[in-house]
C-alpha cells in the first residue's frame, strides 16, 4: 500500500473503531433501559426500546458495509486484515446484544401484569449491572487493544453465570410456593437467560479482540472444550426447566 492509501486506511479504521464504541454504548444503554422498563412495568418504554433497536441495526449495518468496502478496496493483510474481521464480528455481537435487550422488553410485555417478587427484582438488577459491566470491559479491551483484559473476561463472566443460576433456583422456589403463575415464571426464566447471553456476547467480543491483537483464535479452544463445559453446567443447575428456548417472534440469540 502506498503511504497515502495507508493513511486513509488507518483513518478509516479509526472511524470504524469510534462507530463500534458508539454501538456498544447504545447496546449497553438499551440493556439498562430494558431492565428499568421491566422493573417498572413500563410497557410504553418497552415499546420505545424495541423501536429504537432499529437504529442499532442500522448503525451495525453501516460498520459492516464500511468494513466490506475496506476489504474490497484495500485488500489488507495480517494485522490490518484481523482488525477489519474483528470489527465485523464485534459489530454482530453488539447488534445481538441490542436484540437481547428487545427480547427482555418483549418478555416484560408477555408477563404483564404479574408482579415480580422482591428477591427476583434484586437479582434482575444485579444481572443487568453485571451484563453492562461486561460490555464496558469488552469495549475497554477493544479500545486499548488489551489482550490481557480480553482473556480475563471469560472468568469475569463467571459471576453473571452464577447469578443466573441463583436466579433460576430462586425462581423455582417462588414458583413452588405458588407466588407466581407459570406464564410469568417462564418469561422470567427466559429473561434471565437473555442477561446471561448478553454476558456471553461480551466474552465473544473479547475473544475477537484477542484475535485482533495477537492472531489467536480462542473460540477454537472453546469448541474443543465444549462437551466437558456443558456437562459441568448441567450438574450445577437445580432440577427443573434448565433449558428453555425463546418462543414466538424473539430473535435467536
Amino acid at each position: 500500500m502506498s503511504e497515502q492509501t495507508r493513511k486513509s486506511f488507518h483513518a478509516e479504521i479509526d472511524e470504524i473503531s469510534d462507530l463500534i464504541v458508539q454501538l456498544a454504548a447504545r447496546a449497553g444503554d438499551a440493556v439498562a433501559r430494558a431492565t428499568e422498563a421491566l422493573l417498572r412495568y413500563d410497557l410504553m418504554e418497552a415499546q420505545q426500546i424495541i423501536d429504537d433497536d432499529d437504529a442499532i441495526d442500522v448503525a451495525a449495518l453501516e460498520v459492516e458495509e464500511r468494513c466490506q468496502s475496506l476489504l474490497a478496496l484495500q485488500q489488507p493483510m495480517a494485522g490490518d486484515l484481523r482488525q477489519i474481521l474483528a470489527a465485523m464480528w464485534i459489530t454482530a455481537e453488539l447488534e445481538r446484544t441490542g436484540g437481547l435487550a428487545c427480547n427482555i422488553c418483549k418478555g416484560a410485555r408477555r408477563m404483564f401484569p404479574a408482579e415480580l417478587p422482591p428477591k427476583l427484582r434484586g437479582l434482575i438488577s444485579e444481572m443487568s449491572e453485571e451484563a453492562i459491566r461486561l460490555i464496558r470491559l469488552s469495549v475497554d479491551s477493544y479500545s486499548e487493544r488489551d489482550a490481557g483484559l480480553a482473556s480475563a473476561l471469560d472468568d469475569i463472566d463467571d459471576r453473571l453465570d452464577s447469578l443466573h443460576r441463583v436466579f433460576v433456583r430462586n425462581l423455582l422456589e417462588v414458583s413452588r410456593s405458588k407466588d407466581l403463575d407459570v406464564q410469568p415464571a417462564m418469561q422470567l426464566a427466559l429473561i434471565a437467560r437473555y442477561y446471561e447471553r448478553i454476558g456471553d456476547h461480551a466474552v465473544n467480543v473479547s475473544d475477537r479482540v484477542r484475535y485482533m491483537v495477537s492472531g489467536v483464535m480462542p473460540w477454537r479452544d472453546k469448541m474443543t472444550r465444549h462437551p466437558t463445559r456443558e456437562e459441568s453446567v448441567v450438574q450445577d443447575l437445580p432440577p427443573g426447566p434448565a433449558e428453555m428456548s425463546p418462543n414466538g417472534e424473539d430473535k435467536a440469540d
Partner: protein
Amino acid sequence: MTTLIVAVLLVVGGAVVGIALDRVRLRRWLRRLSPLGRSGPDAPRSARGFIEAAQRRGDLAEAGLVSAETAARRLEASLDGLQSGLVVCDRSGSVVAQNAAAKQFLMARHGEALVGREIKELLERARAGERVTTTVQLHTEPRRSYEVEAGPIERDSETLGAVALVYDITEHHRIDSVRRDFVANVSHELKTPIGALSLLADSLATDATPEVAARLSARMQIEIRRVADTIDDLLTLAMLEDESGRSDEQVDIGAVVAAAADRISQPAEQRDIKVIVSGDQDVSPIRGARRQLESAVFNLLDNAVKFSEPGGRVDVVVETHDRDLKVSVADDGIGIPSSEQSRIFERFYRVDRARSRNTGGTGLGLSIVRHVALNHGGDVNVTSREGYGSQFTITLPIDSAV
C-alpha cells in the same frame, strides 16, 4: 450570540497559537533578515542602521509572540475551566478546537460516547446552516442527562464552520421531577383520605343500619387518623426547618436508641419481627435535640418493621467512627430499587404507591429523618438490595453543637 463570540475568539486563539508554535521558523527568518555575520566595524553606516532596526523589529516581534502565546494559553485555560463542553469545527467539518469538558465526550468509551456521537451529528447539521438542540439521556450508571446545542459560525453571510455546546442538565431534570412528583404525591396523600371520608359520610347519611353505621364510622376514624398523621408530620417538618439552631442539650444516643426500640417493640412483636440493638454501649454524648433524634431513629425502625416479612429481623447498631457517631438500622425486608434510592428522602415520595395504602405511613418519615440529621450537622444514607433488605445509617458529628 455569546456562543458565536466565544467561537470566533477560539478560532482567533487557535490562529495565534498556530503562529506562536511556528516561532522557530520566524526566528530563522528574522536571522536571515539581519546578516550579523556581515556587520563588522567597517560595514557602511547605513547598513549598520538597517541591521539595528531589523534587530529591534525582531525583538518587538518576539515580545509580541510571547504575549500572544500567553493570551492563547489564558484563553485555553479559561475554556477548559468551563463546565460545559465546547467544540468548534471548520467548514470542512474537522474539529479545530475543543475544551476539556468536550474532550470527555469525544474520547469517551462508554455511555458518554453517545453524547460524542450527538455532538458530531449536530455539528454536521449546523454546518449546513441549521441551529439545533437535542437532549441525550444516559441510562447506564452514572445516569446523566445532557443538552447538546449547535449552530453555524457565520461572517458576512458566509459559513466558516460550526460550534457545539454541551450542558449537563442532570440536576435540572432531577429538580423538575422532584417538583412535578411532589405536586402529584401531595395531592394523592391529602385527597385520597378526604375522598374516602366524603364517600363514607355519604353512605352514612343514606339509610345506614346501626351495624353498617358502626362499620362506616370505624372506617372514617381510620381515614381521619391518616389525615391527622399527615398534618402532624407536615408540622414536624416545618418545625424542623424552623428549629435548626435552637435546641441544645446533652443527648445520650444509647438512651435515644433504647427509647425508640422500646416504642417499636409492640408493633414489631405483632408482626413477629425481632429488633436487636447492639454496638458501643457508652458512646460519648452529643449536643442536639433529643426529641428530634428519637423521632428520627423511631422513623427508621418503623420503616424497617413495616417493610420486613413476618419472622424477619431488624438490627440497630450504634458505633463511633473517628469523630462521627453512626446509628444504623438494617432489615432483611423487601429492599429498595437502586433507581429509587436517591429519591426516597423527598417529601411524600413513595416507591410503590399501591403498597403504601397497606403499610400506612405519611410518606414524610424519611424526610423527617434527613432533616434531623442535617440539623445536627450530619446526614443519612441508604444501601439496599431488592429482596435482601436495606440499611439506613445516620451519621452525626460528635462535636456537633446545634
